[in-house]
């Protein structure tokens, strides 16, 4: 996988700050503005209530800062369709009480960097830098993982196509695979997709498979 380009300038992004009401966030907001971001504090209206995570965060537009001292839900809303411990946008944890339960809550929500409270202006750029770039790297890895999972799921088509070609053309396994690989490159698709298309277009090419399968079973 190619390493994603590093983001070094965060201007025009919105920093959504999920915080208990009434606490001073002056240093954080001032530093965020200096860095070209728009701070958007969303204090809890009823501090005793648990935090409700927003459903409209966008990966390229938002950065979210979550106060770990709040009562946090264990996961993001289902509408995001996220994997475990992943966040919809770069996420920074604000750490007050440095207890395992609070850190775990932030970790489960996909916080990729932490800012200790009270917030020191000299730490904010580093926290943004790490959260945004780590988010981008994780997204890249997730994409790669999805691709590999999809390829593994389609591997059966390759096996069927190799077997069909061996039967039809009398080729060895390696030779059959080589033909399919070259054809897929010519068609500019993955070998898995190529084989899937091939087998769907020529279901008769797979006809003998049932027979051999039964033979295997009778043994």
């Amino acid at each position, binding site marked *: 996988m190619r390493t994603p*380009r*590093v*983001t*070094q*300038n*965060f*201007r025009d992004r919105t920093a959504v700050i999920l915080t208990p009401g009434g606490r001073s966030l002056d*240093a954080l907001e001032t*530093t965020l*503005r*200096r*860095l*070209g971001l728009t701070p958007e504090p969303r204090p809890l209206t009823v501090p005793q209530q648990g935090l409700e995570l927003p459903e409209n965060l966008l990966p390229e537009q938002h950065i979210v800062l979550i106060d770990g001292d709040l009562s946090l839900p264990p996961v993001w809303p289902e509408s995001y369709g996220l994997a475990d411990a992943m966040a919809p946008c770069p996420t920074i944890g604000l750490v007050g009480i440095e207890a395992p339960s609070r850190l775990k809550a932030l970790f489960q929500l996909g916080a990729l960097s932490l800012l200790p409270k009270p917030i020191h*202006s*000299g730490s904010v*750029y580093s926290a943004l830098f790490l959260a945004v770039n780590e988010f981008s790297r994780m997204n890249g890895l997730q994409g790669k993982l999805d691709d590999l999972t999809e390829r593994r799921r389609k591997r059966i088509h390759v096996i069927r196509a190799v077997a069909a070609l061996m039967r039809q053309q009398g080729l060895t396994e390696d030779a059959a695979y080589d033909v399919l690989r070259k054809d897929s*490159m010519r068609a500019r698709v993955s070998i898995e997709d190529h084989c899937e298309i091939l087998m769907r277009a020529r279901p008769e090419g797979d006809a003998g498979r049932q027979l051999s399968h039964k033979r295997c079973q009778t043994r």
Partner: protein
Amino acid sequence: MNKIELPIGLLFSDTGSYGTVAHTLLNGARLACAEVNADPASGVTFEPFHIDPQGDLQNYAPAVQQMLDRGIRHICGCYTSSSRKEVIPLIEKHDALLWYPTHYEGFESATNVVYTGAAPNHHISPLIDFLCARFGHSAYCIGSNYIWGWESNRVMRDGLQKRGGEVLAERYLPVGETALDDIISEILELKPDFVFNALIGDSSYAFFRAFRTACIDRGIDQVTRFPIASCNLSEPELQAIGPVGADGQISSSVYFASLPGARNARFVAAYRERFPDGPAVSAEAEAAYISVHMLAKAVAQAGTAEVAAVQDAVAGQVFDAPQGRVTIDPETFHAELTPRIGLSRSDFEFEILVEAARPVTPDPYLVASATKLETVQRHPRMRIVS
């Protein structure tokens, strides 16, 4: 009128490896203290207390502690970024205020610091525009192996690549290194349109001398064929380079001693009268001079030397400086300054080539000008696919 008596710490290493430049900083601050004290309308009387950390990083924190123990809460000082980083925690812990008068690489806006030197958008950004328009788009970058060199060259690389240019090579030398033969051979071989120099102190002076000599030996006119551009080249340093190599070099700065106008003439004359043995007037001297005057104005306006009140008063404070109008930006506590590009002469002064029409708002994080993504070298057009 009752004047507020205000002890002020002056923290400058006027001896040590960067002693020449730090000495001009100290002189600029001392001149401003004297002017404020002599002005019946100023409202402040300074009691300067100087400590020389001798350029040794380990001496900075104890020096600041000594100042704080004497009840000093306003300290004008530091040249290198590493020394500034060393003292900021102490300054913040004791809620004092550091008046930092040096051009630097940016990426900081500490709560208890007022920055009166140039931010990167004041020196590097205008220099890139100038070099690309005047000389071309290929650069050889050289720097001292620490944050100033690294970050200056990064901004140069980003700026050039944004304009379709390229960095042919990027080389770093330890601070104080003067063995430059390999570097010079490489420059002559690679033939860049210009050389960007972020060396400091003795390494920089040695480079100017050695490269000029190498060019003369080969019949090359260094000034026109391989122009050298710096963001940290001032008048005292031209004298340190000496007659071979001091002329024809490009410097991006917010102040040159040769600026026209009565205000600057008064400043230069007062400086030379007070410090006849030098070092010469420089941008650093002017920045320290601005720092102390800004402090005096802010204290007078606040009616107290209490740090929070002075910080409130210095936000938006304006000073008629030798370089022109200077304002402290309330957002970043950096100064609005006027970028200029000068060409050094054999009399160790600069001829002004380009000047911004008005003071420029500081952008310490290069939020307005930097690309959002880091620039990368061009990718090959073919790539291997599986």
